[in-house]
């Protein structure tokens, strides 16, 4: 026999959910009014009188498609650079003792706390044709002519990777910190070499962090604006730059909105793809 539902039973069962929902309400209202609503309005602008003209232009005009693909490619370079640079740093931080951990964290966080604009101008000083790096290399006799490090893809990737590196390091660090060191010891005891321990045990266990970091960096890269605009010198048109142009220079809000929608769709697609690719390796999580 089922016990009769007591009055207040619903409330008792859902009290925890209801309370946390209440606590989250201000933030959700904030997001709804200042983020979701404008997005819907923007999306509406991309469909003047229900017409798909803007989307047709965005997806068929060779220029825009190329810029979109270039954007995805640059984002991929940036993500790869961040992963290659960030993985060892996260590993170091995860194993570091107190002093080194504090020092390392400051090195990661300090740039993180500095304005993107300031850091980008900093890179311009370093990477320019007459910049610190080129002058040092010239004076050292290592090169004869200045390296083209700015106003091209290389400069954009360097600047963006620098800005986005912490977004790779932190998810990796969080996952690495939780890995039981005994597992590596056990593998070693079973006859695995250092490389085998890494490849078979450690790296697979960090995959959730890799996925999180890669997703974060990639998604942020796709929409990046300031760094490509300044370090690309107009020669590395990324979709964010293009959208800004449509709004500010051509006052073409409808088309800008359509490009934004395409960018959002591409971002979601990339995220879904990464989940699918890595799912087979992450059944255990």
């Amino acid at each position, binding site marked *: 026999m089922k016990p009769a539902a007591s009055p207040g039973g619903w409330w008792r069962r859902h009290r925890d959910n209801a309370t946390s929902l209440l606590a989250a309400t201000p933030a959700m209202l904030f997001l709804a009014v200042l983020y979701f609503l404008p997005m819907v309005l923007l999306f509406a602008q991309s469909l003047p009188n229900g017409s798909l003209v803007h989307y047709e232009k965005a997806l068929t005009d060779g220029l825009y498609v190329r810029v979109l693909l270039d954007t995805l490619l640059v984002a991929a370079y940036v993500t790869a650079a961040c992963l290659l640079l960030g993985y060892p740093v996260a590993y170091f931080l995860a194993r570091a003792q107190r002093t080194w951990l504090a020092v390392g964290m400051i090195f990661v966080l300090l740039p993180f706390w500095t304005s993107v604009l300031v850091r980008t101008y900093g890179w311009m000083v370093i990477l320019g044709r007459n910049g610190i790096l080129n002058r040092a290399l010239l004076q050292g006799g290592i090169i004869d002519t200045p390296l083209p490090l700015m106003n091209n893809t290389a400069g954009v990737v360097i600047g963006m990777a620098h800005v986005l590196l912490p977004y790779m390091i932190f998810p990796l660090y969080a996952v690495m910190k939780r890995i*039981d060191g*005994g*597992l590596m*010891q*056990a*593998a*070693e*005891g*079973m*006859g*695995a*070499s250092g490389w*085998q321990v890494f490849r*078979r*045990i450690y790296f*697979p*266990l960090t995959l959730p962090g890799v996925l999180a970091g890669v997703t974060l960096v990639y998604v942020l890269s796709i929409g990046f604006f300031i760094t490509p605009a300044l370090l690309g010198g107009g020669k590395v048109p990324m979709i964010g730059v293009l959208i800004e142009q449509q709004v500010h220079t051509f006052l073409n809000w409808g088309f800008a909105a359509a490009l934004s929608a395409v960018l959002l769709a591409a971002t979601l697609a990339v995220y879904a793809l990464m989940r699918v690719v890595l799912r087979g*390796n992450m*059944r*255990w999580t």
Partner: protein
Amino acid sequence: MTEAPAIALRVVGATRRFGATLALGGVDLDVRKGEMLTLLGPSGSGKTTLLKVIAGFEMPDEGEVFLAGRNVTLAPPARRDVGMVFQNYALFPHMTVAQNIAFPLEMRKVPRAERDRRVADALALVDLPAHGGRLPRELSGGQQQRVALARAVVFGPSLLLLDEPFGALDRKLREQMQLEVRRLQRRLELTAVFVTHDQEEALILSDRIAVMEAGRLSQLGSPQEIYRRPANRFVADFIGESNLFRARVVAGGYAELESGLRIPLPDGAPGPGSDIGLLLRPERPKRAADGNALFDGRIVEIVYLGETVKYRIEDAGGVQLIVRWPYAGREPPLAHGDALRVGWDRDDLHWIPWT
């Protein structure tokens, strides 16, 4: 004279310091082929450090380790041919049970077909024949333990190390797994070194027990020897429950307690004037008639333990004695404050130097 048993593992003068703390203070230990030897001690006694030195995860500052006659002191863990079951099992969470067990074989480059066969054998050995495709987190604690055991023995190691493997299991499962490990070890004729802080577990599982205290071997012997004839106060205290009286040997074959109580000494006791400890296990004393009683007191505490009952008796001089007797519930129960006279054989007593 019989031939000396073959030595599977020999530790000579193993010493390890962590800063100012001496974790191992020159431990010598021989483990015979096919025996299960337990390193027993409280936390901080150095038992885990010794195990790590044997496994190769820790380098001794001084001393040497020999496995099957080979000096492996400087060899990395991978070169020692030692199987290990870790405290938390250390199963690889991203690999299936079968992949976990296959791992040491893979590292030894065992060909695929033989690998599969041996993994299947190992799974059958630990009674999990159909669980190869599962992930560790899909198994119960006891099953995870068995997988860890299968993985530790699948490559036929010359030595099996067990680091407090039963700590995480509940009591009933623990007893079952203890017996299972013991059966497996006997069946495969494995030499095993087992670390625990649980003296009961040590008594159940071991051929021999090495009791450790503050980085040194306090006593090495069979469970019976350790229980019946502890070598010192530390072992007497640590193993089982005991009555331990400080006494001084007096003339006429007696020892005298501070309260003036005189107790006949067992054979082989030292001469008059020596300070000794007298050990009497609580199950040894029997109820005695007036004339034969060695201890005459009143019950001050009764603890019902199911099949046995423990009584704490105090005599007129304030000396307390614990006795533990089987209790079937047929005789009228003893009560608080009841007078109780007990006696024992001289040989029930064991003396140790009081240091």
